[in-house]
């Protein structure tokens, strides 16, 4: 994981624009947030391998970053993105990590479905 380089993220967003893509979008406080007193409410939402096609996709901000994708009937949005996998050339793997390194938000876009149990 590297700190986000917005120009390279934009390049990937352009590359995937107009295609049917699989999206993983997630935001989480962690299941223990309320138990440990870190937050008053433990909340998580994710959708994995939803298919969308976007006509516009941009990265914005000075870091942490925001990404917005315009779809036929709505939007996909993520805020707080800090890191990405710089080794990926065909898909976007981005996330926002807090100062402890914990994942808070994730946005992934690819032309193939994401597997939660990819082989070693």
């Amino acid at each position: 994981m590297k700190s986000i380089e917005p120009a390279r993220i934009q390049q990937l967003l352009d590359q995937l624009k107009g295609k049917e893509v699989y999206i993983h979008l997630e935001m989480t406080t962690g299941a223990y947030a309320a138990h440990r007193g870190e937050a008053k409410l433990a909340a998580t939402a994710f959708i994995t391998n939803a298919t969308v096609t976007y006509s516009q996709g941009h990265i914005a901000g000075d870091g942490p970053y925001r990404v917005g994708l315009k779809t036929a009937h709505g939007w996909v949005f993520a805020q707080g993105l800090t890191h990405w996998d710089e080794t990926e050339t065909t898909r976007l793997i981005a996330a926002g990590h807090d100062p402890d390194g914990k994942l808070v938000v994730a946005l992934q876009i690819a032309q193939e479905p994401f597997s939660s149990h990819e082989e070693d």
Partner: protein
Amino acid sequence: MNPKHILVVLAHPDDEGIIGGTLLQHARQGDTITYICLTLGEMGRNMGNPPFATRVTLPIIRRQELKEACQLIGIQDLREFGLHDKMVEFEDQEAIADRVREVIDEVKPDLIYTFYPGHGVHPDHDACGAITIRAIEKLPADQRPLTRCIAMTPGSYAALGQPDFVNDISEIVDLKIQAIAAHKTQFQLMLGSYGQETRDRHRTERLWVYRF
């Protein structure tokens, strides 16, 4: 004491660390341990600091960490059930209970460790405990193995009373901490700085016997 067969049913790689000392003791006295780990913890938030895992690589890394932890503890028989992290309660509960029951029939455990249903804090823990209890309940009453449960809620003592099994594992606390530390993506936040305070926190393991 004759060697026994132990069955452990937990939800995430690193859950075994909660009872790591107890499991180390079992392995050292020659007991065989079968460990059903329901998920790969692929939705975990800890990715190292600075982060070195992604949502894509985390399950692969955590599977490797789990294997290392099992080796350190002496768990010979690891069964990955391949369920998705955070989704255990949304699976067909009866079907998963049947899979647990098949393992029970196969290994014929003398003793089972799982989460106490309703006292797991994490929804996967509660579902894991409930599924395991459901599987054991399918057995005739006189054939149900002793079942010791992990309870994590602040209300455990009020609801369940004093733990039935309070295990002082001081003599192997460093080995237990090593097994926890095998989960490299998780351990920084779980252990904090590894000092006397960490040892003290890990030297007592408390379990409640489930009364069917």
